[in-house]
Every structure is written in structure tokens, then in C-alpha cells.
């Protein structure tokens, strides 16, 4: 048996992969395990790369687990080498350098790849995507080595907004261009987006919505300008494409696994091949609120899926109840949290609260007395109580009027729910 044979092989090195690794080792102390990643970096907190860019977080605090985590859990690492071919029948995966690994069980946790629209000038120097540590390192190095004064970020999603904030913090004249009519359209509702835009403007980030980038202009190979469909031209020495991320399904597709937008998995996170599992941004798992599977590129879901996939791979039988969409993002100092559906279906009941000074805003949508979505902007204190109510799909009719009140607490909830928590052994929401 060649020395590259493992009971478990994990493709990917982010939160889903780490959660799976730890879950497997906890259940199976002896099983041999390998982890493969096309990135050289030790496992790191990817959402923090914008904080590192603008110096808010020192680089050494980026690692997600201690440096020796792989040695402690006896996991062999294959870093900086992408997996190029997967052969489910032969139970093998071949890496870029030709090395072939044989696996008992395999986890696909290869996350997502940034979408790069096919625009003229997109290959110019100074144009970057921003999902990985290397992207951040290259942008930082580019800014330091070139005369950069203006920056344009294409796409005002989660990544776009945080990159724009970072550039503004670095003192660059920053503009973010968004195709839709408002920023963070997936995460917030209209009022939420308005407040987010205001926060960006207060942070000297210019926001242009309902407009698309048609082309990038440059001179001697460096990007110099961005032209919009409105015809206006924005000077820019650095451009970040943040229009979205797509599950990294190429390997799975070529291996003949069931895929849609992401790799399809069942309630045990198994793919169509019983020995191959998938978790994290690459997977398309069940969303209890919408009732059908969809890719969910959010950190907590990735961790949870990784953990459950790991346990199942190690032989225990755990079902994954699905994750609901949720985002917590601080836009230039303005905390925002959204949970569940942000655009409520048809005749949802809406509860809304706006503080006198307009600084904090809450909105909840209820469908037959169950909360299906909530947005908190400004004051997000104890928002998790509502998250708990959404996940448990609890009937809130008896305390509906208390939900939106500022001093929402466990005392506002029925005694049974509270009793159960306060006396119960922990979270069973």
C-alpha cells in the first residue's frame, strides 16, 4: 500500500475542514488522516483578511488554530497543492504534483471561488479578487509598491463592503459599485441598506448603486480607470472584483458526483457517493426556512456542516438539521445582524422598531406566528434570542408584542421555554 493511503482525506483547510478534522479525531483516535489545500497558509480566519489589510488585526492573530494543531491531531498535510482529479471508483485523489492519495472516506471542503466577470481589462495589473490570504497579501504588496490613491470595489456584498471599508481606513479614495439598487441586498432590507450606505459614506466611501462595470481601462499594463454602464469613468489604480462567490464544484463534477449550484448532499452531508462527503461553501445543504437545499456561504453553517460530516465519516450517525442564513457584519462601526429570510414571502406579518435617534432599527417577519426573518441594525444586543426563536420555529403568538421591544429578555418568553433553558443542561433550542 503506497505511503499516501489514509482512512480519511479532507480537501480544503478552512473552518469546515478544521471542524471535520477535530470531529473525526474526537470520535476516532487512531484513524490515519490527511488534509489537502491549494493554499500554503496555515488554517486562518478568512473573514479577518480585510481586518489584517487595514491593520486592525495583527497578522500573527490570523491563525484559526494553534500552529501545531495538525501535529497534535496526527494529521498529514499536503499544502500548496490543489487536488486535480478525483476517482470515486478507485478511491483515489490526484494532486497537482502528481501525488496520488488513496482514501477510505473523503471530505470535499474546497469552499467557493470568486466570480470574475469577463470584462475588457479584467486581466490588467491591479485588478484582484479578495477571498483568500494570498489575495490580501498581493493587494497589500501592490498598494505598497505602486502609487495608489483611488480604489474601486465592484460589488457591495459582504466582501465588497468590508474591502471598501479597509481601503478607506488605509486612506484611499474608495468607491464601491453595486449592480443592485442597494448595498448588502442579500443581508439587509431597504432601511438596513440605507443605514449601511450612510455608514459607508460617513467613512468616506462613495457608494454607486444600480450600475454595472462595463470595462476597465489601463496604461502600460496597470489599471487606471473603471467605466460604468452610465458612461461615467472612475479613476482607480486598484480594483477588487467582489461580485460573488460560486461553490468550487469542478472536481466533484468531473468525478461524476451529483451537483447543482453546489455539491448536493443528504441530511448526513454525504454526496451521491457513499464514501464522499461535502461541507462548507462548496456544499448545497438543506435550508429549513426555504425548505429546499441551497448553497449557504456563511461561517457558522460551514463549521456545523464540517463537524457533522466529520462525525458521520468517523462512524457515528448524526443528522444535520440544516442551517438558516444569518449574517453579522459591522459596516464601518455600524453593527448589523440579519437572520433567516430578509425578503419575506407574501403576507408575512411585520414588526418594526426604530429608535428615536434613528440610530437603531429592528424588523421581524412572522408567518403564522413563527418568526421567519429578522434584521437588526445599530443595536444588536441579545439578537440571538430571536435567532433561537427562528431556529426552533416557536409559536410566538403569546408574547408577540414583546419581541420588538428594546428590553427583550428571557423573561419576555413563556415560562416553559425559559424554565427549560434556565434549568435545562444547555442549549436544546
Amino acid at each position, binding site marked *: 500500500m503506497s505511503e499516501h493511503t489514509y482512512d480519511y482525506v479532507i480537501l480544503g483547510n478552512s473552518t469546515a475542514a478544521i471542524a471535520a478534522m477535530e470531529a473525526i479525531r474526537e470520535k476516532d483516535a487512531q484513524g490515519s488522516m490527511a488534509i489537502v489545500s491549494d493554499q500554503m497558509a496555515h488554517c486562518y480566519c478568512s473573514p479577518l483578511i480585510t481586518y489584517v489589510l487595514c491593520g486592525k488585526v495583527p497578522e500573527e492573530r490570523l491563525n484559526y488554530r494553534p500552529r501545531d494543531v495538525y501535529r497534535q491531531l496526527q494529521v498529514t498535510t499536503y499544502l500548496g497543492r490543489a487536488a486535480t482529479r478525483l476517482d470515486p471508483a478507485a478511491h483515489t485523489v490526484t494532486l497537482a504534483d502528481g501525488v496520488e492519495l488513496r482514501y477510505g472516506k473523503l471530505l470535499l471542503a474546497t469552499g467557493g471561488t470568486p466570480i470574475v466577470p469577463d470584462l475588457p481589462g479584467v486581466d490588467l495589473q491591479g485588478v484582484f479578487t479578495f477571498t483568500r490570504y494570498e489575495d490580501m497579501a498581493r493587494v497589500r504588496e501592490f498598494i505598497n509598491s505602486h502609487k495608489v490613491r483611488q480604489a474601486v470595489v465592484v460589488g457591495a456584498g459582504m466582501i465588497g463592503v468590508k474591502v471598501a471599508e479597509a481601503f478607506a481606513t488605509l486612506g484611499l479614495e474608495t468607491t464601491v459599485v453595486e449592480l443592485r439598487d442597494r448595498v448588502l441586498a442579500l443581508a439587509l432590507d431597504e432601511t438596513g441598506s440605507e443605514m449601511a450606505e450612510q455608514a459607508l459614506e460617513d467613512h468616506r466611501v462613495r457608494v454607486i448603486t444600480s450600475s454595472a462595470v462595463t470595462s476597465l481601462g489601463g496604461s502600460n499594463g496597470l489599471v487606471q480607470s473603471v467605466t460604468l454602464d452610465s458612461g461615467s469613468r472612475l479613476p482607480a489604480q486598484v480594483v477588487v472584483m467582489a461580485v460573488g462567490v460560486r461553490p468550487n464544484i469542478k472536481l466533484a463534477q468531473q468525478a461524476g458526483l451529483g451537483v447543482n449550484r453546489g455539491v448536493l448532499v443528504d441530511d448526513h452531508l454525504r454526496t451521491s457517493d457513499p464514501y464522499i462527503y461535502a461541507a462548507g461553501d462548496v456544499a448545497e445543504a438543506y435550508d429549513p426556512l426555504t425548505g429546499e437545499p441551497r448553497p449557504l456561504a456563511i461561517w457558522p453553517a460551514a463549521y456545523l456542516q464540517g463537524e457533522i460530516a466529520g462525525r458521520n465519516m468517523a462512524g457515528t450517525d448524526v443528522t444535520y438539521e440544516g442551517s438558516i442564513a444569518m449574517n453579522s457584519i459591522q459596516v464601518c462601526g455600524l453593527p448589523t445582524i440579519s437572520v433567516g429570510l430578509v425578503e419575506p414571502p407574501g403576507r408575512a406579518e411585520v414588526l418594526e422598531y426604530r429608535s428615536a435617534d434613528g440610530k437603531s432599527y429592528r424588523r421581524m417577519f412572522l408567518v403564522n406566528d413563527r418568526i421567519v426573518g429578522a434584521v437588526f441594525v445599530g443595536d444588536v444586543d441579545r439578537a*440571538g434570542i430571536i435567532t433561537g426563536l427562528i431556529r426552533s420555529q416557536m409559536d410566538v403568538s403569546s408574547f408577540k408584542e414583546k419581541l420588538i421591544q428594546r428590553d427583550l429578555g428571557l423573561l419576555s418568553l413563556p415560562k416553559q421555554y425559559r424554565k427549560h*433553558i434556565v434549568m435545562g443542561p*444547555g*442549549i436544546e433550542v
Partner: protein
Amino acid sequence: MKRVYAKEEVCIGCRLCEIYCIFQHSGHHTLVKAFLDQENLPEPAVRVEEDGAMSFALQCRHCDDAPCVAACIAGAMTRDPHTGAIKHDEERCVGCWSCVMVCPFGAIRMDNEKGKVGSKCDLCEGKGIPACVAHCPNEALIYE
């Protein structure tokens, strides 16, 4: 693992738990000195909710499958493998409030000036019985 449970029927809303939690984490040796040192007086990790005759004290439940550990993007919220307690590392916290988003008890307190999670219950690790339990005058908080 041992956890702190509140017995609502006998919580008298006196807030001594909060006072002793502050004192325990104040670094001072006398209660009076702790409260004189107003500026760096810590927030209590336990919070008393009161509505008329109903009241009880709530702190982090140190859940077995803690959603806050899953949600934390900075590895600041971790579970201590020995004690099972959920620890919060103030250094690493970036104030993204993901933990606040997922904690179903709303037991995580935000410290807006510092832009980080405020004091979070550490079960008074290394200091014996949690201070809130030890000083509840009516045994409304039990540690088992």
C-alpha cells in the same frame, strides 16, 4: 460539567450576584475598593432580568454544542477541553458580534466602547464556586 442554574421562584432580584461578579473580576481584594475604582470596573457577566415579582439571573450556559464557538470567525470563543467551559479571548475578539447573533439566551454582553464582547462568564475558574452562586442570599443560583 457543572453549570450554574437559576431557580426563578426564589430569585429576589437583589442583584448581589452582579455585584460579586464585578468584584470577583475586578482584581481588587475588597469590595469597597473595587467599586471605588470606577473607571476599570468590569461589567458583570451575570445579568438579572426582572419584571415585577418575576426575576432571575442569567449568565453564559456553557452549552455542550455552543453555537457561539461555531460562529466565532476569530477563534476567540473556544471550549476549554478540560473543564468544558466556554472561554472568551479578548485579545482575538474583533467585535463582529457573530456570537451575539447566535446565542439563544442573549447571555453575551457587548462592550461598545471597546468594540468587543464585554465580560463573559468564565465560571470563576480557579477561584472556587462561582461568585454569583456563592453570594446569592436565597440559594436561587445553584452550581451542579
